[in-house]
């Protein structure tokens, strides 16, 4: 880990300005991902701007009946919030399927959206990795890729966005609210927040340099039944092989997003439309362009079977 300087900003715009104008600066929230990466020198910020004092630690009701979540609301607090449990149960379940109790106490909403991939080669600085070092090559494509992406990947990078919370947020069509260094705000649908890797796997989100997440907005509740099934090798404290977030209405229509398969929570409206036709139809549509490796091809049938299990539970 390199040495760094540290400050606590007084307002979101100031924080954004500080990050934009200080060479090598980054935001820090709970630190549960960033500090680990700094220890390994995968991230080497020279200056950290802490977002904890900005009053962004509340969940508020919006006028249209949704929720507005401050970026510093912890995963624990968000998943336990009565309105979230009542109206956005898929989100509660997704968050609680992630990490551990201790980590969720520290992990923030914005930080969770921005957690980086868990590709083993990304984590080993002796290995070639385009995401760590653009143009370096990708050790995973012909290597240990069992956990990695099957769709939306590229010849440069086949890593996944590994998190859970965002998969539920994608099913809910949440919106990420930000402030830019010049003080202007913008709203980015979660659907557009994470980028596909393409030739630039080191650029992972739609955020501009210094742009800070202030809130995540949940639209009005969808009703329906909420499911989050995270399939993993052990029963807790592991990243998803595949996860499925689904909100299903009594008429069989609904929404479904997949985690652990792509650079972003994977959902398409065309696949949603297949829900009444069953899991196979949804997965066929959602994964039509899949390019799995030999090691991770199982993720596609696994996604189908996981969704089928949810639909069976829905029926019973």
């Amino acid at each position, binding site marked *: 880990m390199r040495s760094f300087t540290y400050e606590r900003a007084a307002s979101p715009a100031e924080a954004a300005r500080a990050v934009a104008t200080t060479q090598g600066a980054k935001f820090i929230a709970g630190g549960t991902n960033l500090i680990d990466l700094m220890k390994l020198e995968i991230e080497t910020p020279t200056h950290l701007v802490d977002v904890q004092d900005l009053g962004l630690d509340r969940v508020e009701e919006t006028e249209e009946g949704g929720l507005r979540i401050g970026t510093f609301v912890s995963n624990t607090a968000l998943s336990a919030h009565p309105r979230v449990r009542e109206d956005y149960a898929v989100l509660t379940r997704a968050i609680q399927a992630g990490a551990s109790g201790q980590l969720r106490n520290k992990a923030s909403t914005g930080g969770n959206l921005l957690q980086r991939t868990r590709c083993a080669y990304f*984590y080993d600085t002796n290995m070639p990795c385009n995401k760590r070092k653009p143009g370096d090559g990708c050790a995973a494509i012909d*290597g240990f890729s069992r956990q990695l992406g099957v769709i939306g990947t590229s010849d440069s990078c086949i890593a996944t966005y590994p998190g859970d919370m965002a998969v539920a947020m994608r099913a809910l069509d949440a919106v990420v609210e930000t402030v830019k260094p010049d003080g202007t705000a913008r709203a980015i649908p979660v659907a557009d927040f994470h980028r596909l890797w393409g030739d630039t796997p080191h650029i992972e989100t739609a955020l501009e340099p210094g742009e800070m997440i202030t809130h995540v907005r949940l639209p009005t509740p969808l009703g329906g039944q909420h499911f989050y099934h995270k399939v993993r090798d052990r029963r807790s404290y592991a990243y998803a092989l595949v996860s499925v977030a689904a909100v299903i209405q009594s008429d069989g229509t609904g929404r479904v997003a997949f985690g652990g398969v792509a650079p972003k929570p994977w959902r398409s409206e065309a696949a949603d439309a297949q829900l009444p036709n069953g899991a196979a139809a949804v997965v066929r549509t959602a994964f039509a362009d899949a390019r799995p490796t030999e090691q991770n091809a199982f993720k596609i049938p696994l996604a189908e*079977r996981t969704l089928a299990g949810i639909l069976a539970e829905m029926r019973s």
Partner: protein
Amino acid sequence: MEFNAPAGENLFDRAKIVGKSTPRIDGPLKVSGRAPYAAERHDVAANQAYGWIVGAGIAKGRIRAMDLDEARRAPGVIAIVAATEHEPVASSDFNYAPLFGGREVSHYHQAIAVVVAETFEQARAAAGLIRTSYTNGEGTFDLKKAAPGAPLASDRPSDSAKIGDFDAAFAAAPVKVDERYTTPDEAHAMMEPFATIAAWDGPKLTVWTSNQMIEWSRQALASILKMDADNIRVDSPYIGGGFGGKLFVRSDAVMAALGAKAAKRPVKIAMQRPLMFNNATHRHATMQRLRIGAERDGRIVAIGHENWSGNITGEAGENATLQTPKLYSGANRLIANHIAQLDLPEGNAMRAPGELPGHLALEVAMDELAEKLGMDPVELRIVNDTQGMVPGEPDTKLSDRNLTRCLREGADMFGWSKREARPGRSRKGRWLTGMGVAAGYRAAPTMKSGARVRMTDRGQLVVETDMTDIGTGTYTILAQTAAETMGLPLDAVRVELGDSSFPVSAGSGGQWGAASSTAGVYAACVALRRMIGEKLGFDADAATFDGGRATLGVESWSIRDAGALTAEDSMTFGEFKKDYDVGTYAGHFAEVKVDAYTGETYITRMLAVCDAGRILNPLSARSQVIGGMVMAAGAALTEDLHVDKRFGFFANHDLAGYEVPVHADIPHQECVFLDTLDPVSTPLKAKGVGELGICGPGAAVANAIYNATGIRVRDYPLTLDKYLDRLPAIA
């Protein structure tokens, strides 16, 4: 004292303390964080500096250059010892690849430098500034490719044996199984990483470290650093898990010693977790072939177990055939253990080396045979229990073996009779449920073990031995043994462990520690009793020691009246033991539910019924067995060092990628000990249990998965991707 004949009736048969469930005497220190582990020994040496080990970035090749300038200029840096500027250290009897290698790199993350700085953070930061360039060499990393040409193990002739005419008998057998199984490389993944504080005082070196075998390690350090062992002190009173990974000196101790010499200050190193998987030793992967032929009544007529593994040494490897000659009868036998040379990190012992993967194959093959025979798998094992002999060793006697009881009583306790024998037929909603069984065998060796006992003039007893407590409960069983032998209450005994200035013990390994070290403490206590008797004028061997007094006939003495005394002795084990096979046995049972949609496996119940002689402390013995069962569950379901065959290293080298079981994976576990005694083992008639608990449960889980799903997977770990396509069709 020599143990030279089976034990007769003795004081332990009337024991009041030994054999009773006793909470750990070191428990309060541990739960309150006051038991100092190696890296926490801030008081042992003033002015400690911090070391950070740099690991090689390639698996095989040569270091071209190391640019150390920037690191040397970094804040707080006191010294850097680097491979390009230092002689390679020598080897030892306990490691092959040099622990600090010079320019030749023999495995990934081999130590190539240590940076010593004023703070931990400065050492780590400076290490990040070292730039190393390499010339890559060619290496062999693929066991599957290397296996066909791998020679038979040469170092141990018993590793390959033929008895009778295996080929003919197998060919003629009416019912047979011929299957291949693989088990992956595994990591010890102990909670406490390697950690050492090293300090020099002139020619004398002290290492406060975390190590299972104090004397081995003192000798190894002497070889590696080319110094006189008498100038080395090793101290390791508390160990946060070892599982065989800390049987040997590793690079933390060597680099701390070299760093301390260069810095002219004590140096502390706690190895960073990402280095723990490739720098350390590991359990070797195996490929196994099992051929078992039986008569229609289930009696085995031919049993063949072939094993392939690889090691950097081209020797030793993982001998998965170990249990096979011991568990089942059968007149025609084949054992073959092949070892390939691989350039992966050095493999070595991990909890039940050989037997853990051996049971994962053999005990599944037995399940497959039972199914082909249409026989209950518990019955098949009982029919083939060796009943009073070691197959192929007609001259070897069995000491005490109750495998059939383990299986029968286990089956009763577990509700085995409720098992649906037809696989894949028990489904409730989305859950497929099943039960599995496996037998377990692990040898119960003993090794010479010494101790010193000091009685103070206040009648307190201090036990000193270089024996270690690796979380196993050694402190407590040694206190129990001393208290029992001296007739003192448990709280009158203090136990000091792990210091090479104490008498040499058996150490902790191979499940020999508990049996050997309690015998050693017993020997020292008998010597002390004799000194007391001499002092006070009675025949100590004839007297009874109880309640702080010795009694002989109508006379009685307070042992305190003998004043302060110190006695030292060792227990050695006589030739007569060579005539016996001394083993421990278990019946392991598991129940699982498997999600019919996703293939996720949940273990719901586990039971081990163990036959291991006198159980010295049922409370801590139970912890050992259930800990073994957890580790076996990991071996069956999740643990897997993924070999990157291009770069030659274990790619998932942290605890996020190497998945040991977590609480949610571990269900209700039960462990029952049969009330048995083994007079051939030690005067206490006790044997080890620490490795018995891992021998078999993994296969019981695998067999339960088969019983639940009807799907047999023979490549461990049994992750769902290996059988997803064979699960019931979904609507």
